[in-house]
């Protein structure tokens, strides 16, 4: 059976839509990056927290971190640039710019700034974050579902 030109065009249109959906999924995927400025130990080497630093991801607002700070930055897409400005031991202003990638499946990751500053490869600095089991939601008890055609007159 020979498939008509129309069939192929239609298939292409559907494929385009699916592809668009997939692209949108990748592009629009939100990742939460927990930026850490803590003394950390990676592969047996300890990296000390910075005294003070300023972090920017993807040209967003700069955030200042003092030691033992952890902030959450939400980003879209997989490819990101990180800019860290800090003052090193010699009181010299330094700026480091690195690129990194967040895998699609990762929703929340920890980014260790001391490791970045130490020049470690990004896959060492950026690690998967296992969320703790306890959330507010599990404390709250029940929620009644309102199925009532008349409740929302707010438009």
């Amino acid at each position, binding site marked *: 059976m020979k498939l008509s030109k129309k069939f192929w065009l239609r298939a292409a249109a559907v494929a385009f*839509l*699916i592809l*668009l*959906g997939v*692209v*949108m*999924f990748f*592009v*629009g*995927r*939100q*990742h939460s990056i927990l930026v850490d400025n803590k003394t950390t130990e990676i592969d047996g080497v300890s990296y000390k927290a910075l005294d003070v630093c300023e972090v920017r991801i993807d040209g967003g607002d700069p955030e200042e971190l003092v030691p033992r700070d952890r902030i959450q930055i*939400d980003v*879209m897409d997989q490819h990101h640039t990180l800019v860290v400005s800090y003052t090193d031991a010699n009181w010299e202003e330094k700026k480091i710019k690195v690129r990194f990638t967040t895998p699609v499946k990762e*929703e929340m990751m920890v980014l260790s700034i001391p490791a970045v500053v130490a020049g470690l490869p990004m896959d060492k600095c950026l690690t998967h974050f296992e969320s703790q089991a306890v*959330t507010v*939601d*599990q404390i*709250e*008890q*029940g*929620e009644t*579902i*309102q*199925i*009532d*055609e008349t*409740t*929302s*007159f707010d*438009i």
Partner: protein
Amino acid sequence: MTKIKSTESFGKKLLKLVKNNPVPLMFVIICVICIPLSGYSAGYLIGEIITRIARNSFLIISLLIPIMAGMGLNFGMTLGAMAGEIGLILVSDWKVVGIPGVVLAMIISIPISVLLGWFCGKILNLAKGREMVTSYIISYFISGVYQLIVLYAMGPIIPIKHSSLVLPRGYGIRNTVNLLSMRQCLDNLLAIRIGSVRIPVVPFLIIAVLCFIVVWFKKTKLGQDMRAVGQDMEVARAAGIKVEETRIMSIIISTVLAGFGMVIYLQNMGTLNTYNSHTQIGMFCIAALLVGGASVDKASIGNVFLGVILFHLMFIVAPKAGMNLIGQAQLGEYFRVFVSYAVITVALVMYESKKRRANSLTGLKLAEDQEVAK
């Protein structure tokens, strides 16, 4: 002489205008009375109206095509709204945000809308002559199916990961889904400000494109067929037009557009009332369209915009006017609900009685002929 004639014709024109457009005029009067009572500033009102045009027009435009195909007001547009909501729930669980999230939600809604629209069209073909009441019941019926899916299947069957979406019992979606991550992302893109009024350029562009598509659609073969089917099914059938197929098409198109419209609507609202958002949307869209001067068998893009402006103006000012007048905001809220329903009732009654009046015209003509013959 000429002057008298022109004023006379003007008077007649005015009378005709009043006679042909009682509903919009009634709303103009309500608004004129309520606006000063509410005490809102012009800037505030204009800003609100612009937001609401951007938010609601797309949904209302989705009603136009079934009207063209003679199927009356499509109360089944809520089916599309539900499809859009399912898209949004999934997208927010997948943590796809911003404009990509909106686009993805729309893409997900398409197959669901097509399926539901096809179902609705099939059923309406079985109930010719009472499409409206049937589509109205379909919307309730599918709403039940929607609840079955969202309340019971989401979790165990359709994986939902985030506890912020799922009810504490472990399955089913919460009453409200937060869409903060994509809230007004379309509206804010390229938005410009004139004075205190923010103009959401992108939604307006989308609506403009849709209007263009509707106008273009009327010029296509399918559009022509729909108009023919809408005016006389039997003649269209005799001419070889596939009547049933054409009617189903019109409902499918309307449902898909309603799905898109719902996504646009909800990205502006920023929250999704999982079990209630869609139920009222059909009613409000239909009321707005009718307020714009449309009737069951005739509606245009102009009706959509006039309707949104007048209807929502009333919606904004009524509670405040009630508050200032009697000291009860609740009164104004009930008032606007009452007006919405009353508008639909009046429009339906006018449509039905007009149909009957047209039938009695021939008799009058016969009597007249005999008078002349004498």
